């Protein structure tokens, strides 16, 4: 005798006609909306931290403080001489893979967001910048390197990015923690709503459940009817929430991209991140199914 699967089986409990279905669907939609936006924030921050970490490991910056001289040409020549000495020294350091002094055009590009396009920076005593790439597995003592560099080229100072980037990473980690807490809270609130809705429904259908028990239905048989219904509501609620969340994520992303300075632009969502976001309706469905199943089993235990 083949058995009928629980998906296609006739449902004796009239769960489709319950007024609480719409309420629950709205709750799940809102939860998935908040969850998707927060999750996209968490994933963006993760990618940002990852990019920053890579930059910490991969490069350092050396500044050549401009020589103070009333003769501009002479001052520039001296400054360039210090830069040359610093470049030569850096090339000799073990673990350094590439040393690139920034050109005037590159310096212009870096400073223009702050000073505007109309300012001629050659009139200003701006430092020269050397971008230094280092091997990821190089073990460099930056304090010693800084002292050696100062000896080789007295106008040169070393910036390993570590100090300010570490502060930014700590800040981002904090944001991540808050966002993760929000995710947990949203999941807990959703589960709570499903728990109470299911309990209310069990009370409402007490007589039917009693008859089902008397004719030999196991708790699992009844729980499966709730699991199926709540899973459906969770999935549809998830789709609706996602429908509104995706445009919102793009909108927030565009707003973030408009902030210049290269910090936010490191926060991007990859294919895997989007896959996680688009799987949220399934996640909502499984939470709804699990919560409903658990609630029914626990509640029915108290019945004979």
């Amino acid at each position, binding site marked *: *005798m*083949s*058995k*009928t699967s629980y998906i296609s*089986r*006739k449902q*004796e409990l*009239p769960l489709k006609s319950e007024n609480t279905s719409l309420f629950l669907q709205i709750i799940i939609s809102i939860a998935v909306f908040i969850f998707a936006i927060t999750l996209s924030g968490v994933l963006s921050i993760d990618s940002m931290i990852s990019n920053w970490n890579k930059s910490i490991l991969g490069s350092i910056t050396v500044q050549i403080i401009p020589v103070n001289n009333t003769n501009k040409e002479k001052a520039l020549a001296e400054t360039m001489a210090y830069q040359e000495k610093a470049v030569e020294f850096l090339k000799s350091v073990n673990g350094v893979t590439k040393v690139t002094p920034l050109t005037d055009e590159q310096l212009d590009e870096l400073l223009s967001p702050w000073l505007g396009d109309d300012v001629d920076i050659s009139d200003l005593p701006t430092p020269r910048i050397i971008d230094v790439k280092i091997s990821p597995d190089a073990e460099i003592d930056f304090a010693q390197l800084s002292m050696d560099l100062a000896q080789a080229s007295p106008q040169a100072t070393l910036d390993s990015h570590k100090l300010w980037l570490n502060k930014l990473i700590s800040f981002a980690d904090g944001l991540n923690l808050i966002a993760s807490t929000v995710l947990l809270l949203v999941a807990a609130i959703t589960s709570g709503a499903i728990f109470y809705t299911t309990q209310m429904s069990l009370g409402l259908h007490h*007589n*039917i459940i*009693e*008859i*089902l*028990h*008397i*004719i*030999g*239905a*196991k*708790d699992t*048989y009844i729980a499966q009817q709730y699991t199926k219904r709540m899973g459906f509501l969770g999935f549809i609620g998830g789709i609706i929430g996602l429908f509104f969340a995706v445009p919102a994520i793009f909108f927030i992303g565009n707003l973030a991209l408009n902030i210049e300075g290269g910090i936010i632009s490191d926060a991007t969502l990859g294919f895997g991140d989007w896959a996680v976001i688009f799987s949220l309706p399934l996640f909502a469905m499984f939470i709804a199914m699990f919560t409903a199943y658990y609630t029914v089993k626990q509640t029915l*235990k108290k019945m*004979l």
Partner: protein
Amino acid sequence: MTDNKNIIEMNNVGIRYGQGPEILSDIKLSLPQGSFYFLTGQSGAGKTSLLSLMYLAQKPSRGQISVFNHNLNFTNRDQLASLRRRIGVVFQDFRLLDHLSAFDNVALPLRVSGMDEKEIKKRVTELLTWVELEEHMFDKTSILSGGEKQRVAIARSVINRPDLLLADEPTGNVDNIIAGKLMKLFVELNKLGTTVVIATHSDKIINDFKYPRLHLQNRGLHIYYPTDTSMFGGLNV
């Protein structure tokens, strides 16, 4: 767990609701497999309570009950469900699921046991035709008459050929012809091995079908056999 031929055994069973007095006290009962009993007693004597103990809808306040050789004190929820599948129950108030059709109500015990839908359709159609409800097969039970509901309830209780059939006033809402037909169904099931207990107030049925009686009186249970005419005549049923 004892291995004997008794379907139900009760020892010193008492039942009370809340803090009230016991409505049944020191019930001692053995129902042999394949037996047929009427359950009688005045209104409020505890017939429905005794039946509910038998169909495992409640636990006794004291004493021990064994059903199909399973001591209920040592039976888990899933085992209880399996035992209940072997029991058919006809309620006095039918207890049908009014949002479902007559067909779906009768199919319920088969679906609960996971039977294939094709087999369910065959069996349910056959039985509903037999109880003359083929025209109302797909009507919701909420629109059926009392007698029709009664027949749906009886069909639901016997559809899976139970080992034990418990019926609370099963012929109370049907005419004499249908009542006779339903009683014959119970008798036929009994001949096939089903143990039957029918709670009834009907003298006619009790007199027409000479089966022993479980009579509830003064919170206790007394068994009367049809051959014992002196006791039989003294009952107030």
